[in-house]
């Protein structure tokens, strides 16, 4: 009788310790970074349109909450430095340190993502973005972080203007002919945290 009470308690304790041990193996930098991003925007389900302007690879990496869909480079291209209206069909042209090139395009909220099956770059990477005849070259290289928004923080100006630079934008102002983005887009092309 006594043994039958103790054994389930023992297994319960062992199970609890095992779960705690597994949880403690999680990288706190990744889990903390993911938690800091907050909840999903209402009305935009998880997918290619979600979280425009946020650092994608925080979750989309090994050990991240979205490890099943890892990205090597991902981000969002907006039209203007002062608003966060996504640019549809903008090209992201990348060249890695070994000279291999890869080009991808944004969707209608401005998001783009490159998976390891598409391209495995050797950092650093040089990047330019383009649409029609407008081309903007990133001044410095991407050293190692695949999330554009890691350095291109949101906020006008960014919280720390000495270590961050603003979101990625293609034009000096609104996109010609599409000031509010692609109005046929399934999601709102204006990012939820756009300052204007």
């Amino acid at each position, binding site marked *: 009788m006594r043994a039958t009470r103790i054994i389930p308690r023992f297994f319960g304790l062992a199970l609890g310790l095992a779960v705690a041990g597994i949880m403690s193996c999680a990288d706190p930098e990744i889990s903390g970074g993911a938690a800091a991003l907050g909840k999903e925007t209402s009305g935009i389900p998880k997918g290619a349109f979600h979280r425009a302007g946020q650092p994608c690879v925080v979750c989309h990496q090994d050990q991240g909450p979205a490890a099943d869909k890892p990205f090597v480079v991902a981000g969002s291209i907006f039209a203007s430095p002062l608003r966060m209206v996504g640019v549809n069909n903008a090209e992201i042209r990348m060249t890695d340190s070994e000279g291999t090139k890869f080009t991808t395009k944004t969707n209608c909220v401005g998001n783009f993502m490159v998976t390891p099956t598409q391209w495995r770059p050797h950092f650093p990477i*040089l990047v330019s973005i383009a649409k029609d005849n407008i081309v903007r070259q990133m001044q*410095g290289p*991407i*050293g*190692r972080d695949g999330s554009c928004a890691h350095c291109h923080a949101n906020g006008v100006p960014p919280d720390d203007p*000495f*270590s961050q*630079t603003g979101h990625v934008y293609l034009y000096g102002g609104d996109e010609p002919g599409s000031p509010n983005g692609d109005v046929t887009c399934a999601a709102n092309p204006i990012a939820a945290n756009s300052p204007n």
Partner: protein
Amino acid sequence: MSNPIRTGALLTLLAASAVGWAESACTVSGKDTFTTQVDIGASATQSFAGDFRSQGVSTVFEKHCGSLDCHGSAARNMKIYSSGGLRLPNEAGAAPGQSATTLEEITANYLSVVDLEPEQLTQVRAHGADPYSLLILKKPLELERHKGGPAITRGDDAEACIVSWLKSGTAGVLVDKNSCTKAANFPSQ
């Protein structure tokens, strides 16, 4: 109104120039400090600090190590400041990607590099130890684990630049400015 960080950096530069890079590093004993001063000499020390800027060594570190997502991050212990990366707080409003790297930032870069392993650097500079024993080479060459991967490769201009700078002033070795200039063109298209 003066910026305390800028003022601090300038004072540090003056201190480094006046008494040499090794003095701040040599905290092991007074005897070591004295020996290092004698072995290196004030002029060699000033050259070492001066060459970091004038021969373009700082630029090599800025280009190869100082992007905002690497050692241009405020979260790194060894911070590298540059025009295109992390900026020292300033009243001029210089942000990443704006205006040239300042003297204060170059000074801060110098201190980042020499303060990484001060005792071991003294061994290299004053006692002929192998420069490749320093993290400043082992990490970017990935002789030791480096999260950012190989930032320079064996035999390239960046390596030649940094090694020549570390050895400069000993046995007539001069900083390989030509390699530094070429290494500063990084990454090339």
